[in-house]
């Protein structure tokens, strides 16, 4: 028993060893697939399939655009949900929950129904020359729908964590509500917002189900992985997967560390 309690935690108090042991086991479970990937990759014959480079550019470029749109549209909604209470607010919450709940494949079908060439919005847009299936805008749209609700939930929590009293004080100090938002609410919510952006990025860049239905072309990395598997086999999946980690990891890693006030080194 003494072996299980003889551990000093960060605060210097003796702690049980059990959580650390269980934690290590859990981490090992999470790391398992990547250990398998490392051992399955043919390092001596590491090469990319045709089109892999294009998919990297598509994923990186369009995910960044989606992310900007998500922040631009999601932040005001998150703010509004955090700061206003009214009868029937649960309906709005249910709508966001619905968007979170819908299986990606089903969401892709719903989006095609709405924005596809025969859909009510899609047919209108087609007349103005905007194709919302199998096009760059369709790709961005798919990622937007896939990640937006996650960002809204995280950003709302971030804004709810800002003491209202500080916003009120800013008003009594002569600032307009708009100035108060930029000078007080945003800086104080920044850590939570950073976590929300990281989460949205992860969702957007890895989105497969919606993209598969709505924007099979231009192929981003997740769809290209599927295509490589179908056309070539497993050996064509691993190299692209490594690159995916390489390009998708830095943004959420840095934002995640920032939101916990840690440094990389």
């Amino acid at each position, binding site marked *: 028993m003494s072996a299980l309690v003889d551990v000093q935690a960060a605060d210097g108090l003796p702690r049980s060893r059990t959580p650390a042991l269980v934690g290590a086991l859990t981490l090992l479970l999470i790391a398992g697939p990547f250990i398998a990937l490392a051992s399955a990759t043919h390092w001596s014959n590491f090469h990319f399939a045709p089109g892999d480079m294009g998919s990297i550019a598509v994923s990186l470029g369009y995910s960044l655009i989606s992310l900007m749109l998500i922040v631009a549209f999601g932040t005001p909604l998150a703010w509004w949900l955090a700061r206003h209470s009214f009868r029937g607010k649960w309906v709005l919450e249910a709508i966001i929950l619905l968007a979170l709940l819908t299986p990606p494949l089903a969401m892709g079908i719903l989006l095609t129904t709405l924005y596809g060439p025969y859909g009510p919005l899609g047919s209108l847009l087609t007349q103005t020359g905007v194709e919302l299936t199998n096009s760059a805008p369709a790709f961005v749209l798919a990622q937007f729908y896939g990640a937006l609700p996650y960002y809204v939930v995280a950003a709302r929590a971030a804004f709810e964590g800002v*003491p209202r*009293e*500080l916003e*009120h*004080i*800013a*008003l*009594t*100090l*002569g*600032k*307009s509500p708009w100035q108060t938002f930029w*000078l*007080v609410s945003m*800086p*104080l919510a920044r850590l939570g917002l950073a976590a929300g952006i990281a989460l949205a990025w992860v969702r957007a860049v890895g989105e497969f189900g919606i993209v598969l239905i709505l924007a099979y072309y231009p192929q981003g990395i997740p769809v290209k992985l599927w295509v490589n598997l179908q056309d070539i086999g497993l050996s064509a999946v691993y190299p692209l997967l490594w690159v995916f980690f390489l390009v998708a990891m830095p943004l959420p890693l840095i934002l995640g560390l920032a939101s916990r006030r840690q440094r990389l080194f």
Partner: protein
Amino acid sequence: MRIDYSIDHPVRLEVNFEVEGFTILLGQSGEGKTTLLRAIAGLLPAQGEPFGGLLPQHRAVGYLPQGYALFPHLRAWENVAFGLPRGRQRRAQALELLARVQLVDVAEHYPSALSGGQQQRVALARALARKPQLLLLDEPSSALDAATRDEVMAELISEMHEFGLPALAVSHDPHLAALADRVAVMSGRSIVQQGTPAEVLARPASAAVARLLGHRNLFTARVAGQKISGITLLRWEAVNGTTLRLPQQSGLAAGQLVQWMIAPTAVRLPSLESDQHHMDNPVSGRVESRLNLGAHFQVALRCGTERLWLSAPSNLVRHHGLETGREITVDLHSDGLLCWPHQG
């Protein structure tokens, strides 16, 4: 400056009183004191003067909420500069304001690194930066520790006098009343008494006000009768039906229940010169406990079923050997007795 406000929500409130220098509005928790301050600052809907109908950002008030609400992401000087217009002079002006509250040394510190008293003064400097016509302080003494509270508050009040600004502080702490220029007392959602601290402390308008002001010797008695010689007699039933004489009270009928009060300093021990034997209202009791306050003692006497506090110079207390358990007869000075018809 006259404050005249009526509020419907979240509590119904109608107040009308004068703010002069450093004014304390005393009231129990739940009276709506914070609500009133927030209404004057424009942070909740209300009708009244001054500033009626203006948006909060257009009201010339400096609001110091409980806990001071400094911006945690800004340094002390940036907090002060928050309300200043943008420009090259901004930092210099902020430092000047910090200097006026003796805090230039901590200008670069974040609020989390400041003590309660320092945070309060930064909040004061921040409020002053926008040149308010009125300062609003919510429970200014609540976050200060007991040892330095009086000192910090006295300093704060003298700083406000220097700035020449009227300030309204709401509090439930009767201690603050003595430090203020003016006191208003709130009870039952309205102002029941106002005046200088000396007036209000000496003549509370009701037993409820006396209790808010921290008076301890509050008791009930029954009117025994009025004498033609201008004296009202009370029968203190809790202490073996002791009769108390006090200057004539109008509007009291024999048999009526009253609340009465006496300041601990008006409860007199027999004097050192043993030839003076006259007592207005002799009352006997047993010493229950005593507090040594240096030059003075506070002594609790058990009289019948009541506890009577007296405050007396140390030498007198020692002379009478007032140890716990000792029996003594004290005199309740007639002029120090206050009485009101019983309420509730």
